[in-house]
């Protein structure tokens, strides 16, 4: 049981490049989340999904896109990367319901130069 797996762990992009951050969970969780954490700051919600085919915006969605074609996978797409997107990106998942804990992946450290 791997939990929440994020790839890659590190990536450097040039301004204007695009990439996809991968997130997969094997716990059959229906809720999945993407957060970004800037240096010395808290976590801000980018997008979330409550099930396959259903996604919604969080606090800071601009510059990102998501899709949820399966329960297991929730990729985050960066189009036209900008230096402001330099951050650590965390994916998380949980079961539906009020009492269900949030489980995090180990994060992807992204630098846009």
């Amino acid at each position, binding site marked *: 049981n791997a939990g929440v797996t994020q790839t890659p762990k590190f990536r450097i992009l040039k301004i204007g490049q695009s990439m996809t951050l991968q997130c997969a969970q094997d716990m059959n969780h229906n809720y999945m989340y993407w957060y970004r954490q800037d240096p010395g700051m*808290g976590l801000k*919600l980018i997008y979330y999904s*409550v099930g396959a085919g259903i996604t919604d915006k969080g*606090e800071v969605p601009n510059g990102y896109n998501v899709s949820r074609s399966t329960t297991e996978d929730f990729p985050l797409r960066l189009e036209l990367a900008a230096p402001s997107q330099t951050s*650590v990106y965390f994916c998380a998942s949980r079961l539906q319901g*009020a009492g269900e*804990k949030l489980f995090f992946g180990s994060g992807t450290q992204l630098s846009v130069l």
Partner: protein
Amino acid sequence: GIQVEQSPPDLILQEGANSTLRCNFSDSVNNLQWFHQNPWGQLINLFYIPSGTKQNGRLSATTVATERYSLLYISSSQTTDSGVYFCAVHSGGYQKVTFGTGTKLQVIP
């Protein structure tokens, strides 16, 4: 959206000391969790506590939902307690999870 503020933002403790971290939120919430982010960036769930008090070893947490705050108590602190502590609240029908501003704790020997 809901605002979640934590205090203090920074805290330095001598090993063995006790501390209280506070989480205030601006609106009614369905749930609340406390997390520890270790110096390597890993996020670990400490408590799920929508109301009442829970204890786990040297850590305990209390949430008073009607007054919109939660407290995390750390007793007999150890250097391994260092890191950042976040509270996170569920709102919007349990779906959205919003994190607080964090408390950075450093425990020195």
